């Protein structure tokens, strides 16, 4: 009974903000102070998927590509760093870990502003790679953090056993380490993907309006004051993130990554 109440409270608090989004996205006419739309309709969706469809598709693809690239690079940097931090202690470890975690604390705002000048020199502003790099500076530390937690619970004996049975270094990595840390990899990739997915300001500063991701497009559409359209775009923006969560959900509760939550 108590448990059902708690579940209802959690579900209510979490899902409440989606209610006005859903109502607005399917409303045709909805004047104040009507509680529900006087007329339901698909105008917003016809606009978002029809008139603005090509733009939306392009932004969606751009966002997915940027976030996927950031996730892959973050995990690639996070695995070796996490392995070293989680398994070993060595001189200077505390200082190194503070440096690595600094971007989690320091806001990305001034970093993006500074990087703009540098990427301008390298002619990388308004490019895909430039946006990926600025996102990476904010997202990679989270992947390091996750993999650090994963390797803190990692048992090196498995690798020693494989090696004593004649496994090559490549075998040890590919057939022992990667399968063991796979749940952690999924969680780290999810973190990096979601963080990159919702970046707005750094994309705007470095992308200079040339790299149009979904948040950039949504901001532009918000400015028009068209509530049904803003609601529909918001829903389009949320669905891939929710899908990413759903896909990785079975790894989130996994004992091996519990420590990082």
């Amino acid at each position: 009974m108590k448990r059902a109440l708690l579940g209802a409270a959690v579900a209510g608090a979490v899902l409440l903000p989606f209610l006005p989004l859903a109502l607005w996205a399917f409303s045709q006419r909805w004047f104040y102070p009507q509680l529900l739309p006087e007329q339901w309709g698909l105008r917003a969706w016809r606009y978002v998927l029809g008139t603005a469809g090509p733009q939306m598709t392009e932004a969606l693809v751009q966002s997915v590509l940027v976030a996927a690239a950031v996730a892959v690079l973050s995990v690639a940097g996070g695995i070796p760093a996490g392995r070293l931090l989680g398994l070993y202690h060595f001189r200077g470890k505390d200082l190194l870990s503070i440096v690595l975690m600094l971007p989690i604390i320091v806001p990305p705002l001034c970093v993006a502003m500074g990087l703009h000048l540098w990427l301008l020199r390298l002619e990388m502003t308004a490019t895909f790679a430039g946006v990926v790099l600025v996102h990476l500076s904010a997202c990679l530390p989270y992947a390091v953090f996750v993999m650090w937690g994963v390797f803190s619970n990692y048992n090196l004996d498995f690798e020693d056993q494989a090696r004593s049975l004649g496994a090559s270094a490549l075998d040890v990595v590919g057939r022992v380490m990667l399968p063991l840390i796979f749940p952690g990899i999924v969680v780290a990739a999810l973190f990096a993907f979601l963080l990159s997915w919702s970046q707005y300001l750094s994309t705007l500063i470095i992308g200079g309006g040339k790299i149009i991701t979904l948040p950039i497009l949504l901001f532009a559409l918000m400015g028009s004051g068209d509530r049904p359209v803003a609601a529909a775009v918001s829903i389009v923006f949320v669905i891939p993130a929710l899908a990413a969560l759903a896909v990785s959900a079975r790894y989130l509760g996994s004992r091996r990554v519990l420590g990082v939550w």
Partner: protein
Amino acid sequence: MTRPVGHSTTARTRPLMRPAAVWLLAPALAVVVLLFGGGLALGLVQGLGYLPAAGMSALTLEHFHRVLSDPDFFKSLAFTLYLALASTLVAVAISVAAALALNRLAGRSRLIQFIFQIPLTVPHLVIAVAVVFMLAPSGLLARGLHHLGLLPAGSGFPLLVNDPWGVGIMAAYVWKEVPFITLMVLAVLQASGAELLDVGRTLKAGRWQRFRHITLPIIFPSLGAAGLIVFAYMFGAFEIPYLLGQTYPMMLPVWAYKAYSDVDLLARPEGIAAGLVIAAVVAAAVALAQGLVQAARRRGAVL
């Protein structure tokens, strides 16, 4: 605070025999030093007035001086501090209650935990839009109150979005950050087990005593770390205050970006200088919090 929660003490790590293995850190360190550090350094240089595009190349403290002597800047700073602190405290309080309830009643329920994770994935922009639709004078809340006859026609609905107290901003942040803090705390609670609480009960410790002297010390490190991360984020983030904030005083990140993107290129170093002040305040807040905790521990406080 820079360690994953609940483990990774040196007791379980081995000494590093091959110093060359430190190279494993190279990719991550390169990204942080070059991109993050480089960005900050170049920001600093520009904040000091190096702006080749506008033909300025002499270094000067003038921009920092102009930012710090602007009375509007201090109004923004105070407003930002208030809102980030208040939102963090509200979020921390709700999170502790939620973590305790979840641990007691739904520790094993995958469904409740899945629902709880949803806000983590929702972009800040989307929750900002939802808060506008919910709390604005013509939002769902006002419509609902009107419908129930609690808001007679003509009487004004209080301003909860773009308002002087930042209610809308706080609502959006609390919704977004509570799951993050709760899950950090919950992980520790679930790992700690119930034995200590049973001992407390046998020793006739009351509910509050058990919370204060057993639960709180267990969850404090991760609660503090999560709170600091959330505070730092709120202090430096742009989207939510931009959409839900009032025009005066603005939150600092909005102030900084407005100056940075001003058509007048000469305002750009001021925006960057303001951005660096934000970074400095956040760094100072984190150091202060760490110092306070350590001082309290030295005086024997159980934290």
